[in-house]
């Protein structure tokens, strides 16, 4: 998937379908989307690489706004330029918009029901398992040398123990470290 061309037009309905589905089944958005996107765009269709995924996550975390929308815009642009970005963003917005309209117009006051909150606890457990598998898969690809391993461990510890630290700051520092260390020759992505 280098530069998307006009032959990528058929991608638009797929992008819409996948992002609609992601938004409808994921509760909380953001990183929950990663396993679904990995399945749809990497495994099923091979439109993206593991590096594409992780670069997008890094960029999106460093930008303001709703992460799920940012992710859809960035991924959509990546796969089908501006039309892809717009179609993907619309697809992400529709399910929560409708869900809230329905809930807000049916109930004047909202309260959590026991069964519902129990169901969402187990959904979060499943999300946890899926993200863990995605992380392991990415780790196998990325963590082959001392430098990336050190950066990943440091970042993990900072995010776990100092969650108030801005993700953009950590990502910027890691970028600076990469600038200094430089990509080892044999890992450079072949140029087209």
């Amino acid at each position, binding site marked *: 998937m280098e530069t998307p061309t006009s032959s990528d037009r058929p991608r638009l309905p797929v992008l819409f379908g996948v992002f609609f589905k992601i938004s409808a089944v994921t509760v909380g958005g953001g990183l929950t989307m990663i396993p679904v996107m990995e399945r749809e765009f990497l495994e099923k269709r091979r439109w993206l690489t593991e590096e594409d995924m992780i670069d997008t996550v890094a960029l999106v975390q460093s930008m303001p706004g709703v992460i799920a*929308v940012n992710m859809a815009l960035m991924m959509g642009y990546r796969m089908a330029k501006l039309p892809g970005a717009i179609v993907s963003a619309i697809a992400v917005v529709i399910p929560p918009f409708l869900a809230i309209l329905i809930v807000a117009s049916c109930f004047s006051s909202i309260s959590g029901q026991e069964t519902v909150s129990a169901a969402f606890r187990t959904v979060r457990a499943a999300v946890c398992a899926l993200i863990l598998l995605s992380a392991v898969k990415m780790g196998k690809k990325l963590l082959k040398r001392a430098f990336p391993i050190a950066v990943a461990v440091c970042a993990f510890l900072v995010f776990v123990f100092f969650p108030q630290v801005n993700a953009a700051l950590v990502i910027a520092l890691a970028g600076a470290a990469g600038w200094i260390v430089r990509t080892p020759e044999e890992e450079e992505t072949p140029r087209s």
Partner: protein
Amino acid sequence: MNAFMLYLLFAKIGLFTFGGGYAMIPLFQDELVERHAFISPEEFANMVALAQVTPGPVGLNAATYIGYRQMGLTGALAGTLGVITPSLVLVTLAAVFFLAFRKNRRIQDILYGIRPATLGLIAAAVIFFAESSVFTEKLRGLWSDSAACPGISWPSLLVFLIALAVNAGPKKAGPVATLLGAAILGGVLSLFF
């Protein structure tokens, strides 16, 4: 307050919140509960709880809900469009530049540092999700308070293990089926636990 003002207010929130999701909540609270008194603190808390059990990102849910409460469908549209407008512009610009320059050697060097950091971020998310599902307390308390052992939610642990098992092999259940299965199983298990 008209629809356009509502749109601008949500655009401001969309522009100044980094980190998405729950990072947006304090700014929502600041602007909408305290400064403009659109909704009461109690309703705001309920809205956040609602956002957790409805599909989609919390930031979008909040914008739609508060917009709807202010001026019906028009308000819901104004709030939703407002909160995504800054992203639409900034992220699209970033995507254009990133695609143009990502082959550059120095950009590749920067990405060489950024990728593992992002992996660290994703791995940290695993901990956060575990703390609100499989475990009933914060795991991070273990280091500061050695006496407390985190409680375990057995239905969640079971679902976690099943989700791992059905997705780890070469033939995967897939995330959508896994999430739906987890919701159904969670509802059923809650009748017994």
